[in-house]
């Protein structure tokens, strides 16, 4: 690992004689940015009320106070437990989370109280409250991660335990009967639904597996970096080292087949291949991983109709019966985006309810419709900034495990946004995965907050100044040892 010259790194590896520039925690910046994000969310919330009724929404004060209190708690915990962490991550996540709550409220009000429209699956009257409770749980888990993981390297000790937890969580829905694990109407077996309470274990499996991958790869990276044969200028890995890649590939394919969950399968494969690449710096691993995924997905699309259908919808959404049948959801989402245009209809003034299940996978189209291209681009840039802060942390941090982990997590977030936003905007085939922070629902939100906690924990390590050597210790004292 070479030493890195980032703004933080300059202080760390500075010339000993130069005046030491103390890196700053920038917690005040964070506090200020949090005020800003509460402002944006409050404005958006009021906007929904004005868009629907011409008056601020009922119960707005209560929700906003709860939201603010949660952020104050998160901020105080960060001051206490991760004072050197990146100051932008918390406000960025808070803004997205807040906008998600606002959209949940907006969709909850559809068809109620004289508001226009009807949702394909109506939200309960307490959906906003529940979303705030999930936010509280999310921030609770955020705090828990910061409390339990004081030092990221600790996680490395439990590499295999996390791997096991991750696999169990992933496999669980596939093994459970459909009545418990199937998302109604989609055929995707990705959740555990008991007594009205639903958890999507994959949201947590992702984090567990990321930790496991990082631990494994850092331990084995010397072996995995060994070159085997050379083929057209690329060093291929040794055949015997292909094992782990093949295992992850097999798991992702199983996900694809048994849980009908192409999006998650792509995200897992992408996460692993990316971490493998970061750990080994071998381009060949990237190519092998990518080729394996493409071959797997192509074969699956030929063998399983539900996978093939996704491609057909992607390529020909407007032809034949597609617009009103298979592609209805995608097409309605696209119509929503088109209707939003450049400046959007305004929160509460669009018709996002025409898109089936707009509250979950297609929530981006609701934002695109009501906030327009401008708002949607701003939201994408919020994600982009989180990912950028994560990758910057990854470059800054010295410990290889943390490097691989935070690099992988950042890439996973980017990939997730790419898969779902790219899916609903028809850049790539639409596969149902949640939009981090924005989709209605708890597991994804809690998982996303845990991810932010890990990024902040590692950025705290990366930006923390080394213990200052005592410069001025006076004259060397002669100690008489007689």
């Amino acid at each position, binding site marked *: *690992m*070479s030493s*890195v010259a980032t703004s933080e790194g300059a202080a760390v590896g500075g010339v000993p004689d130069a005046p030491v520039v103390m890196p700053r925690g920038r917690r005040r910046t964070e506090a200020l940015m949090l005020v800003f994000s509460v402002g944006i969310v409050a404005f958006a919330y009021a906007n929904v009320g004005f868009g629907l009724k011409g008056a601020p929404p009922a119960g707005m004060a209560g929700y906003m106070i709860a939201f603010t209190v949660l952020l104050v708690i998160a901020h105080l915990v960060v001051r206490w437990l991760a004072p050197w962490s990146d100051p932008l991550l918390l406000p960025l996540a808070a803004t997205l989370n807040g906008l998600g709550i606002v959209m949940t409220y907006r969709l909850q009000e559809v068809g109620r109280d*004289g508001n*226009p*429209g009807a949702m394909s699956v109506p939200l309960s009257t307490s959906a906003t409250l529940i979303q705030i409770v999930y936010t509280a749980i999310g921030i609770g888990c955020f705090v828990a991660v910061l409390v339990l993981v004081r030092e990221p390297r600790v996680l490395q000790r439990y590499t295999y335990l996390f791997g096991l937890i991750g696999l169990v969580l992933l496999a669980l829905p596939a093994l459970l009967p459909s009545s418990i694990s199937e998302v109604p109407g989609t055929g995707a077996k990705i959740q555990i639904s008991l007594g009205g309470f639903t958890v999507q274990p994959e949201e947590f499996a992702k984090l567990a597996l990321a930790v496991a991958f990082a631990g494994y790869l850092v331990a084995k990276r010397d072996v995995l970096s060994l070159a085997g044969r050379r083929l057209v200028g690329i060093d291929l890995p040794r055949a015997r080292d292909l094992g782990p890649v093949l295992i992850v590939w097999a798991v992702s394919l199983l996900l694809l087949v048994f849980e009908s969950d192409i999006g998650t399968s792509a995200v897992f494969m992408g996460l692993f291949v*990316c971490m493998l*690449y*970061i*750990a*080994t*710096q071998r381009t060949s691993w990237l190519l092998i991983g990518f080729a394996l995924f493409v071959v797997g997905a192509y074969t699956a699309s030929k063998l399983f109709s539900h996978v093939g259908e996704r491609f057909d919808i992607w390529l020909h959404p*407007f032809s034949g019966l597609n*617009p*009103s049948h298979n592609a209805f959801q995608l*097409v309605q989402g*696209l*119509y*929503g*985006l*088109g*209707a*939003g*245009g*450049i*400046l959007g209809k305004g929160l509460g003034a*669009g*018709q996002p309810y*025409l898109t089936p299940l707009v509250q979950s996978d297609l929530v981006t189209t609701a934002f*695109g419709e009501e906030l*327009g*291209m401008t708002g*949607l*681009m701003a939201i*994408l*840039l919020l*994600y*982009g900034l989180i*990912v*950028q802060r994560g*990758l910057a942390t*990854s*470059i800054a941090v010295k410990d*290889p495990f943390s*490097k*691989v982990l935070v*690099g992988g997590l*950042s*890439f996973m977030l*980017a*990939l997730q*946004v*790419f898969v779902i*936003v*790219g899916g609903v*905007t*028809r*850049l790539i085939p639409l596969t149902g995965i949640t939009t981090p922070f924005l989709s209605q629902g708890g597991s994804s939100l809690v998982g996303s907050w845990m991810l932010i906690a890990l990024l902040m924990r590692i950025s705290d390590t990366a930006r923390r100044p080394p213990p200052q050597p005592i410069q001025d210790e006076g004259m060397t004292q002669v100690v008489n040892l007689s």
Partner: protein
Amino acid sequence: MNRALRRVSIAVLFMFVLLLANVNYLQAFEADSLASKPGNSRAFDAQYQYQRGEIETADGTVLARSKYVGGTYKYQRQYPQGAEYAPVTGYDSLYGASGIESGENSYLVGNSSKLAVRNVIDMITGKPKKGATVQLTIDSKAQTAAWNALKSSGKAGAVVALNPQTGAILAMSSYPSYDPNQLAVLSGDQLNTNDKNLLHDPSQPLLNRAISATYPPGSTFKIVTSSTLFAQGKENQNSLVSAPTSLKLPQSSVSLINNDGEVCGNLGNGKATIITAFTESCNTAFANIGMQVGSAALKSMAERYGMNATSPTLNQELSTQVAKSNFPLEPAQSFTAMSAIGQKDDTVTPLQEAMFAATIANNGTLMRPYLVQQVQAADLSDVYTASPQAQSTPVSANVAGEIKQMMLSVVSSPDGTAHQFANAIPGVQIAGKTGTAQNGINNSGLNDAVFTCFASSGNRSMAVGVIIQGGGYGAAAAAPIAVDVLKSYLENG
């Protein structure tokens, strides 16, 4: 590892650039094409999200307006005048529109390119979008007079009144009509039911008889026949023509007679002046004139009066095809004779009837009929103002003067077919021509009553065409309606 991380960062940057570019493409460039895709109910509902412009008459009577009702469709269309104006306004329903509602839709919705700059300003200043107001040329008093007269006659028919100097349509009424409010309902099921009822109604209330139905013109066509003859420059209203009581048509077993076998004029030699033949509407005289000038000349003149053609301005304003008034070239002399008195294959719209009189009233120049006077944006600035255009000049002012004399005589002469209206409007001289058109196979149907006329008072003048299906005599069934319309307009001048 940092080298790999930097590459990953570049890949991530690339992914986000792709997403941003695609969002730009969809929402900025593709938005219009998405809006026009089939089944895009958002684009459809969007029309009901803000206030559609009003339609009003020249004198400010509101014919159509949008009322806030809330719900998915925030505004509902209302037609305060109901059936009376349905042939003009048409309807704006969930499934489609007709009439002015359809033809002037881009103004009423506010999407016309002429409104684009104002829309951008409104968007920036946050003013709610509102469509432009379309002001018609219709005079509400004339329209109401036409409607009431048609309604009290109880027979299917239509009235069109024109301003001869401009071509502005002052009244356009068709009976039976329908209440467009029935089609402005915001429930799809209710709309389907109402629409079905109207479509299956045997009285055809959706048919705009003023422009979409054609009838034989009968003797009113003698205006065209006279025009053809006078245009040749050799004869005038005082020239003598052969007007026997019975005329055996060449190569035919049919003999043509005058109405009720009357003798034409009082010269007693089987001849009559053209003005007499016109005043008394002698068929044999005009059959002879027709055979004299020939079918080609009649057709050419008929076409200069607007027959055999549709009306482009009205087609666009009403989003429909105005029916062509028909005058084909007749191969046989006997047919030419019949066509010269408005029988055989001749058919006209009530609009065409008004155009006959309007041409004469305007000294031989036919003005292009139009219905939209002005379009006013929501900020009250004008975006469109009609400019009258000449369509053709069928006859010289001289010939028009001759024919005017004859038409005046129809009403003023004691022998005139419409003599009973000589003093119908105090101080106003009406010039007119009656028509009683035989109808159906072997003329078994009831006669259609036709009347075309014009009059002026002060600086107001008006030409009216009336056709009453199965009305009988033109003077009895059609002329009283036309006179009512003239009266309403000229007396209120």
